[in-house]
């Protein structure tokens, strides 16, 4: 089986030849640290936003080398929206959002083009540009059809709050201005539908709909608020992805239990990353394994940064025992391979997945 066939079989909730291995994201630093195991041709250690075009190409090639050497079954691309620098810490994107860059993760909106409901009428929508998909195109060109091509796109909740420049502002309007929240979600959704089209045209197989809806304890919004302000837009997006022949899964950290039924009903094909501090993957498998492909769960908060390779292997073994039988499981970390994760531990995770992830699963409890 090719990596892509493995991933698609898992999404179809059937057993491939072995558990597919994939990752939602690697930071620049993580790519370079992992790359050191396989190549000397590395870019300098800095943020992608600060790299020259030549260095960015080198960074991407390093990622592809890592993916090839570790035989990853899927690869994730991000949209590379053009930005212009505002100051040392901030950039501005095509929507007019001010993003703060960070060495520890993705850039986050701290200012938006909309500050109150009256600004919505004057908002000039940004339309995705072909250059936004350069990473996807490079990935398809470099790794070909043998791996599943995943494109990450923030969902309507995250796009909405970043247009306001603050999640708190959006959640405030959940109570105060329901009509505004819905109008804003539709603006975000219309944009996301265009992204889905361009992802399909450029060789994506799977959309990862990003944007946390929960934190450690519970969801950010009530189940009723999810039903009203997020669910209808999720439905539009999953239906469109399916029309375009793409699979789509929801990513959210945190305790998603209160709205898991909604995630299934909205038409998602999978759920990532089942954060082990908040959700038990065995329980997720029992309750939703017949309707969702489950992705993730290998702890990147403590285990991958601070654990030993033996502990990583044990966690992979146990997670495969619980989540992989019957198919419908893709192994990955519980969020991403961020700069805190030891590269040796990530490599140990992939090796252990190959050791224990051969179907039929034969791992004792």
């Amino acid at each position: 089986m090719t990596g892509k066939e493995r991933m698609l079989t898992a999404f179809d909730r059937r057993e491939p030849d072995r558990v597919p291995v994939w990752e939602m994201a690697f930071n620049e630093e993580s790519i370079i640290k992992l790359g050191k195991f396989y190549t000397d041709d590395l870019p300098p250690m800095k943020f992608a936003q600060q790299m020259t075009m030549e260095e960015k190409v080198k960074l991407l090639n390093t990622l592809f080398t890592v993916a090839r050497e570790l035989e990853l079954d899927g690869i994730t691309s991000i949209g590379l929206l053009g930005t212009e620098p505002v100051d040392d810490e901030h950039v501005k994107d095509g929507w007019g959002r001010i993003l703060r860059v960070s060495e520890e993760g993705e850039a986050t909106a701290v200012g938006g083009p909309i500050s109150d409901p009256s600004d919505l009428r004057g908002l000039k929508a940004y339309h995705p540009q072909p250059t936004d998909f350069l990473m996807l195109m490079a990935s398809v060109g470099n790794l070909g059809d043998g791996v599943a091509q995943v494109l990450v796109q923030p969902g309507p909740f995250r796009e909405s709050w970043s247009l306001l420049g603050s999640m708190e502002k959006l959640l405030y309007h959940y109570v105060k201005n329901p009509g505004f929240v819905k109008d804003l979600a539709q603006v975000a959704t219309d944009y996301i539908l265009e992204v889905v089209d361009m992802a399909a045209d450029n060789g994506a197989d799977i959309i990862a709909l990003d944007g946390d809806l929960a934190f450690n304890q519970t969801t950010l919004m009530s189940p009723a608020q999810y039903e009203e302000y997020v669910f209808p837009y999720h439905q539009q997006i999953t239906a469109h992805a399916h029309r375009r022949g793409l699979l789509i899964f929801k990513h959210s950290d945190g305790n998603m239990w209160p709205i898991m039924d909604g995630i299934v009903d909205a038409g998602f094909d999978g759920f990532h990353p089942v954060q082990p501090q908040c959700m038990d993957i065995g329980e997720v498998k029992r309750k939703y394994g017949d309707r969702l492909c489950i992705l993730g769960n290998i702890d990147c908060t403590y285990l991958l940064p601070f654990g030993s390779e033996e502990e990583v292997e044990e966690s992979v073994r146990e997670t495969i025992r619980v989540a992989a039988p019957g198919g419908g499981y893709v192994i990955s970390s519980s969020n991403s391979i961020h700069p805190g994760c030891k590269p040796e531990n990530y490599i140990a995770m992939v090796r252990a997945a190959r050791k224990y992830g051969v179907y039929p699963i034969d791992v004792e409890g």
Partner: protein
Amino acid sequence: MREILEAIGKAIVEGEEEETRRLVEEALQGGVDPRKILEDAMMPAMEDIGERFSRGEAFIPELIVAAEAMQRGMEALKPRLAEGERGRGLVVLGTVQGDIHSIGKNLVRMCLEGAGFEVVDIGEDVKTERFVEAYREHRPDILGLSALLSSTMQRIPEVIEAVRAEDSGALIMVGGAPVTQEFADRSGADGYAPNAFEAARKAKELLG
């Protein structure tokens, strides 16, 4: 008097900002002790939201609008509170260096203010030296440190050590998604809370 205090509490719980401010002004004009308004109407309303939150009946949006209403009420109330009576204590709050996440810290700020604390929020991605400077400048009753990532969480013991070099008796609370009681203990923190409401409770407990 009971009616108006109840009405203030209800307006806060429902996130009615204008109504809260109007009712606080009305109560003050009617001669109600400002401290009574704070302690018998406003703070219990925020505690009520906290209890509903822990029962899964209220979520972050309800907390945010209640905190906004509380703020509006405080605008009317603050000038009438006697000097030195401005709350339960002063907390300086910030997210450690490298971490640009703000929502967790902001929710803690809302809950602390809701519990009657004064809060100086020094923002996100705050360098260790800046925490020390802010501590020196404000001499808070409690210093609060937040981190959302397990990588940036490693800054917490560094900040604690630097602040304790300034004041060995500094009371320090820590929190954030990856932070645990064990990590807090290991870092030498005086308090840890798993969420914003618990943080306010813990702060009250620390100050006895």
